[in-house]
């Protein structure tokens, strides 16, 4: 009995003693940030994927690109390249690299040199050159680069000296720089690759990553956590937080619980927005993502080859209702395919009118006074640009019934759905598009150009010579005002011809604790924790201003 009581005493003393250490504990959590992520990354190399979850976990944390986007205007700024030069014909682009960029030093790799042209060559040749020893490591698929036809665009990459590198293009392409600044065009370490080749562990390059980014990988437990440490020798000022932990919590309620119980500082894709707003110490942020959800027609099939029918249907759709019920207000009404956050957005484009009378008149003009029946293909999965296509299809069905158009809703398994769409078996369909980078061309060319109708990404099969000319011209000029004009004209053509009806630009949501400051989400691409810092309790008292600021942000976000 005496032993027992001694043991209990000892245990409680321990507890009390450990409780006394609370100040240190504050400091550890003060120097770290925990992010509740929605899933595990497939790999640690963004070149290999397009999945948002993987990009979030890797791209901006572990790596840098040659150039980057900055600010609300999304202008291109130097990153690993301190400057660049484009020849007048736009076919030769020379990058001048920084000379002070260090790679991560980790348990598995110690760099012996700084970043140089060899690393850039390695990173891009791995994608371009099928004979490159690393091309087929991890499968040899580089989806982003295959989509933008990177290979046919690049003639060769030339190393001029250790810190200068030149890309020779086969044609002028204004989106080239934008593509190099996208999350996928990261720079890997050639020295690390050499080391891996020596021990024949090539596949480690994508699972045990070495980059130049603000954080380095410390530990990864599949389905459980990713631990990053700060890269202290980062070429810019080091990140504020010493430790960054991704707590992988795939259940929506699990993330909410952890957020409310303060077990994570930031949570991705939160549910129960009202509940979060109710809490004074939580902030709900939203950002209009560069995407568009739309309702489109197969313009090669009757009756949708007739522009009057397409216009009639555009008049008959009540977008406001769709926005309220399907997006629950978490989206912006789309007037054109381009979101208003894009620099080429044209405010003069009017909202589509909801007018059943006009719709009926147009149908009569087109020769369908008694209406017709049509198939509507609704995608079976939830996407940011359309959270529930089947329900949206049901609402459209009700809307179109009013002008005597009978809608049959069709849905297939997701991959079959996409495959059959590209074969053109459909009449009308609900789909959307998420941008890879902020250049407006990323909306115009892949969605509606003639060439895209051959490759299958333009499922309306709409091919308008005038429209194609305009977007080609826009690609060839460097004058931003001219580009804007071309895109406005292109958007006017879309509004008149109605190959598709843009419905909404959805928002991306994130919830965070009030004491976490700094931007994390961006309108496109992955999240970044580089700028993030934590308010300490003492700071909170000293700097009430900061607090107010975050308050304002929260109200803004709520609105």
């Amino acid at each position, binding site marked *: 009995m005496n032993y027992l009581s001694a043991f209990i005493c000892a245990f409680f003393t*321990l*507890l009390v*003693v*450990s*409780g006394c*250490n*609370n100040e*240190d*504990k504050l400091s*550890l*959590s003060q120097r*770290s940030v*925990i992010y509740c992520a929605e899933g595990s990354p497939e790999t640690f190399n963004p070149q290999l994927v397009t999945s948002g979850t993987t990009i979030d976990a890797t791209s901006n944390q572990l790596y840098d690109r040659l150039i980057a986007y900055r600010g609300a205007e999304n202008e291109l700024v130097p990153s690993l390249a301190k400057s660049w030069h484009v020849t007048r014909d736009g076919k030769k682009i020379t990058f001048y690299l920084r000379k002070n960029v260090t790679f991560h030093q980790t348990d598995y790799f110690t760099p012996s040199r700084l970043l140089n042209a060899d690393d850039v060559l390695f990173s891009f040749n791995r994608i371009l050159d099928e004979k490159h020893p690393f091309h087929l490591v991890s499968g040899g698929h580089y989806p982003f680069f295959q989509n933008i036809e990177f290979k046919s665009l690049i003639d060769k990459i030339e190393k001029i000296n250790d810190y200068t590198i030149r890309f020779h293009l086969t044609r002028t392409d204004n989106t080239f720089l934008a593509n190099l600044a996208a999350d996928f065009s990261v720079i890997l370490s050639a020295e690390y690759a050499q080391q891996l080749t020596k021990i024949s562990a090539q596949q480690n390059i994508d699972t045990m990553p070495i980059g130049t980014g603000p954080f380095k990988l*410390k*530990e990864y437990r*599949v389905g*459980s*956590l990713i*631990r990053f440490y700060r890269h202290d020798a980062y070429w810019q000022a080091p990140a504020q937080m010493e*430790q960054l*932990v991704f*707590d992988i*919590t795939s259940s929506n309620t*699990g993330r909410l*619980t*952890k957020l*409310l*119980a*303060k*077990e994570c500082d930031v949570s991705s894709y939160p549910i129960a927005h009202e509940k979060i707003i109710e809490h004074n110490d939580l902030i709900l942020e939203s950002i209009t993502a560069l995407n568009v959800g739309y309702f489109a027609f197969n313009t090669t099939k009757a009756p949708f080859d007739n522009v009057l029918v397409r216009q009639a249907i555009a008049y008959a759709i009540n977008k406001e209702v769709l926005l309220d019920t399907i997006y629950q207000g978490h989206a912006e009404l789309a007037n054109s395919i381009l979101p208003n956050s894009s620099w080429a957005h044209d405010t003069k484009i009017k909202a589509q009118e909801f007018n059943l009378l006009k719709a009926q008149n147009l149908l009569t003009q087109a020769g369908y006074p008694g209406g017709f029946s049509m198939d509507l293909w609704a995608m079976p999965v939830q996407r940011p640009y359309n959270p529930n296509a089947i329900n949206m299809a049901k609402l459209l069905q009700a809307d179109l019934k009013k002008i005597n158009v009978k809608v049959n809703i069709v849905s297939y398994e997701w991959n079959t759905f996409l495959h059959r769409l590209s074969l053109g078996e459909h009449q009308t369909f609900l789909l959307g598009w998420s941008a890879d980078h902020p250049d407006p061309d990323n909306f115009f060319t892949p969605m509606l150009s003639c060439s895209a109708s051959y490759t299958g990404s333009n499922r309306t099969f709409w091919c308008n010579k005038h429209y194609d000319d305009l977007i080609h011209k826009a690609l060839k000029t460097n004058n931003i005002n001219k580009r804007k004009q071309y895109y406005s004209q292109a958007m006017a053509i879309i509004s008149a011809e109605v190959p598709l009806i843009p419905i909404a630009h959805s928002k991306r949501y994130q919830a965070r604790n009030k004491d976490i400051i700094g931007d994390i989400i961006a309108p496109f691409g992955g999240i970044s924790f580089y700028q993030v810092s934590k308010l300490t309790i003492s700071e909170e008292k000293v700097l009430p201003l900061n607090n107010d600021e975050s308050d304002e942000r929260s109200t803004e976000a709520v609105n």
Partner: protein
Amino acid sequence: MLIFTLRRLSLFVFTMLLLTLLSFSLCFLFPGDAVINISGAINATPEQLIQLNESYQTSRNIFFQYLAYLTHIMDGNLGLSMASQSVIGHEILNLLPATIELSIVALLIAMFVGIPLGFVAAIKHNKPADNIILSVSMLGYSIPVFWLGLLAILTFSISLGWFPSAGQISLLFEIELITGIQFIDILLSDSPYKWQAFSDATAHIILPACVIAVAPATIFIRLARTSMIEVLETSYIRAASAKGLTFQQIIFRHAIRNALIKIIRHVGLQFANLVTIAMVTEVIFSWPGIGRWLIVSIDQRDYTAIQSGLLVLSCFIFVVHILTDFIYAALNPLARGVKYGS
């Protein structure tokens, strides 16, 4: 004592044989090829399959197949997980300690709360205190654990913010896995934040352990009450009070010791019950233990994992059972003479 030990050991061996037989038969009862079910090698090449067939002796009769299976288990080879293709033996070794840790803490809580309350109820037999304790224990016993778990998270993690809602320790602390039992690992680690980690781990275990402890605690209350009432009615207690000992002396010197012995016999039985509750609780509190792993495996139809997980868990419970028997026998000389493995 030697005969007692031998008897228990033979009981252990035979039970294990039956358990392995059951787990072995599962691979035929699950849909699919028995060799693949047993080894988990769903992506095996034809050559590997031939090798597997050979090592599990599928060409010979069922008895040799069973022997081959036993040899594999003895070598610690439990196959690969069908879902993740990782070695099940390693996964179990990593996960089982977390469950053991949680169960032991829960058991301690249940005993430290339940037994004294039961004694109080017995001493105040048929008085209001007795009735209150009994009805509370009835209530505790009938509350479903998943509901209680969610309620606890809602109250103590979300509303009050006293305890964390998920996991074994805050992810900020890096504790190397040595024994798998978090508290020991923390004490062994050389992290500068050792004591913070310790208190953080304590905060993490309190909520799930208390939730698990509720049902066993109510059983301990009843056991303690009955056994105390029995002891209080015995002649030696009456003799003690006739000798003029005070009530407290009677209780603390004689009654508690004798009542405890009877309870300890039941601890092993209760442990099986407790581990079942712990499995559900692990899911609710995202506790990285074997129960959660097993439930996820069932969800994924990971037959190899289910088979091996069940074998290891039942083996573990049985070992605990036998251990408590030994403790009981060591404390109570009368029990050693009892024949038959009851």
